[in-house]
């Protein structure tokens, strides 16, 4: 059998090839590395990317997804080898190191060139004056209170100051029944307890652990916080096993009615309900120092976003960042993640449908996001150093002042 190619067929094939080749040449494929996709409902981030592609013909997005720790390692290696993806999901704790490697693009010129309204974003993370990260979604850390334990202990007014917190914690503690007022996880394996459960007391009162861009751990705010935590420990209101307790164990103890209060991520609300549907809990802001009436700093962890300095498609990458930070898309993304928005105008749908989230959203709206570890060099290492000094203090080996002074010395070496 012979197969004869008709001239018309040849022309069609040539035209099709030309069309395909032209469109392939016109398409820009952005690589977007993040850990968000596995944490969102299946297919939801891809759907947002599809919408972006439809709104921006000629730009395709390839999602490179993995668990948080894997993504962190992948980004560190990518920054070192110059193979960082065009757009990267970032944790505030990483940006200083990445900036030191010149791995992140400064988004200031992009914002200026595109006339981007900076007032619409909740925060812009800057290192050395360079805008390197936007928090896309924020997971705030309020205080969770077990209302049944509080009622049994006769705590009628939920604490709003540190002194009230100590009193409430004392009332809720019954060591003979394995029941304690507060839980503090200071495991060295994941030292984030320093950020979420210790420094949150400082930020809540509008105070700072820094001064002029340098650590100020020997200042009154941090020493007072350590003194307060020591007083809680001395009063025996903290659940035992502090030095090796992890965040997961903290949540487990709260879920199982073993602690009255904990500072925890709002992202855990659904998990807590799932683990113990009968648990009656409420959310309050982290209590403040006496007579403080200013705005409260709200500790948070975030899904940040940045652009690779080595990207050949920074213009297209900026379009994707803008898209994710826009009011409607941001609201959609954070609704899926049960997080608070990076765009101040965005309103996630769960705040109207869920009482707990609604209350947390009010706390969020009346305060401001505060996490001073964001942008610091080797943030995890700083937390580990502070953790060790706090553990020594709680073990009775040193005073709060000595703990602060030793941590300051260690931190200064890293700056």
């Amino acid at each position, binding site marked *: 059998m012979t197969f004869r190619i008709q001239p018309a067929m040849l022309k069609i094939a040539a035209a099709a090839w030309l069309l395909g080749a032209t469109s392939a040449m016109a398409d820009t494929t952005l690589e977007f590395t993040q850990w968000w996709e596995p944490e969102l409902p299946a297919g939801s981030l891809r759907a947002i990317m599809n919408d972006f592609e439809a709104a921006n013909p000629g730009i395709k997005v390839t999602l490179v997804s993995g668990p948080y720790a894997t993504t962190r390692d992948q980004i560190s290696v990518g920054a070192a080898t110059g193979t960082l993806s065009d757009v990267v999901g970032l944790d505030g704790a990483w940006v200083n190191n990445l900036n030191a490697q010149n791995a992140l693009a400064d988004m200031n010129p992009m914002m200026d060139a595109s006339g981007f309204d900076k007032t619409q974003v909740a925060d812009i993370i800057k290192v050395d004056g360079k805008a390197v990260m936007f928090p896309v979604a924020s997971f705030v850390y309020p205080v969770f209170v077990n209302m049944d334990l509080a009622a049994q202990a006769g705590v009628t007014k939920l604490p709003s100051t540190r002194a009230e917190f100590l009193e409430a914690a004392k009332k809720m503690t019954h060591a003979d029944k394995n029941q304690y007022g507060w839980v503090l996880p200071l495991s*060295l394996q994941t030292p984030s307890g320093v950020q979420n459960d210790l420094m949150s007391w400082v930020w809540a009162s509008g105070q700072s652990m820094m001064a002029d861009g340098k650590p100020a751990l020997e200042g009154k705010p941090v020493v007072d916080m350590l003194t307060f935590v020591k007083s809680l420990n001395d009063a025996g209101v903290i659940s*035992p*096993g502090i030095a*090796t307790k992890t965040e997961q164990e903290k949540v487990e103890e709260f879920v199982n009615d073993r602690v009255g209060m904990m500072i925890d991520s709002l992202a855990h609300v659904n998990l807590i309900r799932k683990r113990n549907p009968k648990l009656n809990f409420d959310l309050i802001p982290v209590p403040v120092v006496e007579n403080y009436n200013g705005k409260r700093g709200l500790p948070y962890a975030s899904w940040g976003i940045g652009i690779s300095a080595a990207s050949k498609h920074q213009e297209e990458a900026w379009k994707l960042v803008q898209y994710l930070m826009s009011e409607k898309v941001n609201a959609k993304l954070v609704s899926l993640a049960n997080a608070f928005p990076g765009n101040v105008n965005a309103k996630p749908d769960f705040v109207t449908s869920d009482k707990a989230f609604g209350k947390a959203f009010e706390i969020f709206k009346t305060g401001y996001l505060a996490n001073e570890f964001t942008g610091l060099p080797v943030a995890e*290492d700083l937390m580990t150093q502070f953790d060790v000094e706090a*553990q020594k203090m709680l073990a009775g*080996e040193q005073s709060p002042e000595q703990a602060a002074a030793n941590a300051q010395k260690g931190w200064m070496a890293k700056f």
Partner: protein
Amino acid sequence: MTRQKRSHHRLKRAVAPYLYLSPSLLIIGLLMLLPMVTVIAYSFQNSAVLRRDPSFAGLKHYQAIFVDPVFWASLWHTLYFTCMSVVFHMTIGMVFALMLNSDRINPTLRNILRVLYILPWLFTAVIIAVIWRLLLEPNGVVNSVLMQMGIIGSKVEWFSSPETALHAVTFANIWAGYPLFMVSLLAGLQGIPKDFYEAADIDGAKAYQKLIFITIPQLMPIIISISLLDFIWTMQVFPLIWITTGGGPIYSTEVLSTYTYKLAFSSYNLSQASASAVVILLISLGLTLFYIRYQKAR
């Protein structure tokens, strides 16, 4: 055969074994030598991995770890953890092996004990860590039992107290590792000829004399080999310590592996972490050479 042909033939014969070995040499080179050499090179560089053009650092990173008191504490903890583990692995392994080899125990009970004793070996390090965290937590079973028996008056924070944490992780590791000794020694016990014991019986030897003069000398090659291997492996234990204590509280359970891990993935000081890894490599290498020489001597 001409002279040239003969030398060609000789060359072919000399090269042939290396050609047969080349696939495995290539794999060993790629998977073992290359990473090892890379890590050694990193230990002499500033900002290794993190910069594209790292500068030469000389012995700076070695000096930095040698003046770090946490490194020396880690070394001491590693030695304590390893020595205690090996000694108790051997002792418990020997006792259980003798028990399982004894004719005085009912065969059914012996089979049940055989399964029970080997159980720790079936669990991964993560499972073992989780089991012991649950058992030894302040509100855990161990404290409850000890308090009911009147052995302790109040709850002990086994993993969270600097006084008890190192002993607690060592205990967990002893529990996890004795089956290797038990199985190896049991195999050795079954290989000792019965004649020796019969001759000893005729001479009126007592049980402990048979143990000291027959059993232990006969098992000595196994004891030394397994002890050396156990020493090398235990020195590098990471997941059990990391999951139970993370090297804390304070630095009370910091060992060389957790110290190196923190340098690399918490401080992002990959050069210093490489220097610490090279120190571990040298210690392991020394022990391995000792083991190889012992094996050759046998």
